[in-house]
C-alpha cells in the first residue's frame, strides 16, 4: 500500500512545464459533457466540444494549438511556434484483429523528465521491476523532439519466463508509443505524461492486445491491467521520494541517461 507523500519543496533544476504536446481530454468524454475543465500544466484548461467531433482547448482567453490522435486531444504548452509533432495514428486501436484498448491512469509526484529518463535507465529494471537481469539495449536513436529505444528483457509473466522485445518512442515528453512482442502476447501502448501542477503529473495509458484465441484473450484482458498497475507501483515510491541529481555519480554503462538529459534541454 502506497503511503501518502507529504508535499515538499520543488525538486528540479528546471521548470515543471517543459514545452510540448500534452494530453487534455478523451473525445469520447466530450459526448457526455461538451465542456469541462481540467488541471493542466499549472493552469485550468477548458476543453469545449466543437462541430464535427472536434474540440478546442483554452486557458483563460488563450486558445491553445491542438491535435487529435485517435480518441485523444492534445494541446501545446509553451511559448513560440509548436514543434512539429508527427505522431503516427495507432491503427491497432480500431482494428478488428485487436481487443479494444483498456485505459489506466494514475497521479504521481514527479516530473515528466523523470519518466523519460527512466526509459533509458536499464539498470533499474531488474532492481525495481521484476526483470531477470538487465535488459539488452538493441537500439537507441534521437531525432529532434523524438527518441526511440528498443530493448530485449527477460522477465517472468504469469509464471512463464519470456524475453519480450519492447520498442518505446517518445514524442516530446508528453506522448509515448510502445509496442511489445512477447511469446504469448503482442501489445500496443499509448502512454501520455501530463504535468498537472508543479509537483504532480498524470499518466494515462491505453493498451491494446492482439487477438489470438478467445479464452487466452479474456485471461489477458483481465490480468494485464493488474500487471501494468503493479509495474508502475514499483516505480512510484522511488519517483515520489527521490531528488534530482544534476551531476549524478553514474558509472560507465549509464551514459545514455545523460544523452536523454541533453535531448530534454530542447524543451526548456
Amino acid at each position, binding site marked *: 500500500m502506497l503511503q501518502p507523500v507529504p508535499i515538499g519543496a520543488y525538486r528540479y533544476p528546471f521548470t515543471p512545464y517543459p514545452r510540448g504536446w500534452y494530453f487534455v481530454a478523451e473525445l469520447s468524454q466530450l459526448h457526455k459533457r461538451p465542456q469541462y475543465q481540467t488541471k493542466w500544466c499549472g493552469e485550468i484548461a477548458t476543453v469545449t466540444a466543437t462541430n464535427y467531433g472536434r474540440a478546442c482547448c483554452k486557458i483563460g482567453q488563450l486558445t491553445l494549438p491542438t491535435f487529435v490522435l485517435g480518441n485523444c486531444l492534445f494541446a501545446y504548452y509553451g511559448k513560440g511556434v509548436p514543434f512539429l509533432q508527427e505522431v503516427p495514428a495507432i491503427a491497432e486501436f480500431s482494428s478488428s484483429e485487436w481487443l479494444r484498448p483498456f485505459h489506466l491512469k494514475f497521479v504521481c509526484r514527479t516530473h515528466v523528465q523523470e519518466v523519460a*529518463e527512466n526509459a533509458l*535507465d536499464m*539498470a*533499474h529494471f*531488474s*532492481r*525495481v521491476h521484476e526483470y531477470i537481469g*538487465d535488459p539488452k539495449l538493441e537500439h537507441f536513436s534521437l531525432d529532434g523532439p523524438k527518441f526511440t529505444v528498443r530493448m530485449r528483457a527477460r522477465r517472468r509473466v504469469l509464471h512463464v519466463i519470456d524475453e519480450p522485445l519492447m520498442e518505446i518512442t517518445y514524442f516530446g515528453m508528453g506522448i509515448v508509443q510502445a509496442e511489445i512482442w512477447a511469446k504469448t502476447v503482442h501489445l500496443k501502448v499509448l502512454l501520455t505524461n501530463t504535468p498537472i501542477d508543479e509537483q504532480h503529473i498524470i499518466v494515462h495509458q491505453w493498451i491494446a492486445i492482439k487477438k489470438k484465441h478467445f479464452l487466452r484473450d479474456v485471461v489477458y484482458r483481465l490480468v494485464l491491467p493488474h500487471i501494468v498497475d503493479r509495474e508502475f507501483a514499483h516505480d512510484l*515510491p*522511488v519517483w*515520489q*521520494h*527521490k*531528488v*534530482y*541529481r544534476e*551531476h*549524478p*555519480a*553514474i*558509472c*560507465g*554503462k549509464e551514459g545514455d*541517461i545523460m544523452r536523454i538529459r541533453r535531448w530534454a534541454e530542447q524543451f526548456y
Partner: protein
Amino acid sequence: MAYRFPFAPYPDGWYQIALGRQVKAKDIFSVTYFGKDLVAFRGENGRVTVMDAHCPHLGAHIGVGGKVVGDTVRCPFHGWRFNQQGVCIDIPYCDKIPKKAKFKTYPCREQNGVISIFYSEHDNQPTYEIPAYAAFTDPKWSSIIHLSYEVQSHVQEMAENAVDMGHFPFVHGYKEVPKIKQLDTNGPALTIQFVGQRRMLGITNSFDVTLHAVGLGLVFATTVTDMVTAHVIHSATPINENLLRIGVTFVFNKTWNPVRNVFLRQYLPGEIFRFTDGDRAVLANKIYRELPALCSEEKPITTLRRWARQFYVDSNAQSELAQQVA
C-alpha cells in the same frame, strides 16, 4: 514565516535524531532535520550510521524501499551498496565505482538510549563528546520514557529559556523565582543549578535542578524533588529554519513501592507536557532581542549568549585564516 533570529539556524553541535530503540536491526529509519532528509540504519555489527537520504547516483530515497545488507545499505533503485562510511562498495552491473558515489554521513553516537549526530554547516568535526549517564541503562531506574513535540523556535532560544529564572513563576507555576546555586561554563558545556518550589499533585515540592548543557542541542538535567528524582535529556533539534523538535527522554528512581512506580510512569509524561505547554506559545510568538533590557538578576542570559557564540564559528575558515596570518 520570516526567519526571526540574528544568527544561523543550525549552530554546530550534537543533536538527538532518534531513540536507539527506533532504529531496529536491519531497518532503515527516515527523519527530516536541518531541512534535509536523513536516514539512520543499524548494521549487523550493531553500529548505527546516519547519512543523507538521497542516493548520490540518481537521487532515490534510501529509506523508501532500501535494504540493510550486513553492515551496508542497498539503494532500492539500482542496487548500489554503501558501507557505514557512506562509500559505495558495489555496483551490481559495473566494476568501476565512480569517485562521487559517496553519501554524506554524520558523526553519530548512541548513548543513554538516544542516537545523536554532530551537525555542522561548516563541516566542522566534533571537538567534544556526549556524557554517558548510567541511570539510562541501570535497572534500579525506570525504563526510558520519551515524549516529543514541535515548537516554532531556535535552539538558542530553548537554551536561553533554561537559564531564564524569571519566567519560571509565570510560565511554569513556580512559587517564586528559583535561586541559582551554581553557574559555570567550560568549553562547550554549561552547568546551572537552581532550587525552587512548585506544586505537583496538590503538594508543594522542593525542586533542586541541575542542568548540564552540551552544546545547544542537548541538555542533561537531574531533577530532585520531594517525590521523585529524574534524569532527563532535553533535546532540541531543528527540523527546518523555523521549527524545532523538542524531545524529553527521562528515567526516574524506582522504590520498593510498585504502585508508586506505576503511578509515576503514567503521571510524569503528562506533568512534563503541562510544564512545557506555557513555553510553546511564548516561544512561537516572541522575537529575539539582540540587546534586551535585562535586569541585574538576569546575568545567566548574558552568560549563555556569550557561551553560545562558539557554536556558530567556521573552524575550517578560522584555521585557514590563522595559516595565512602565520
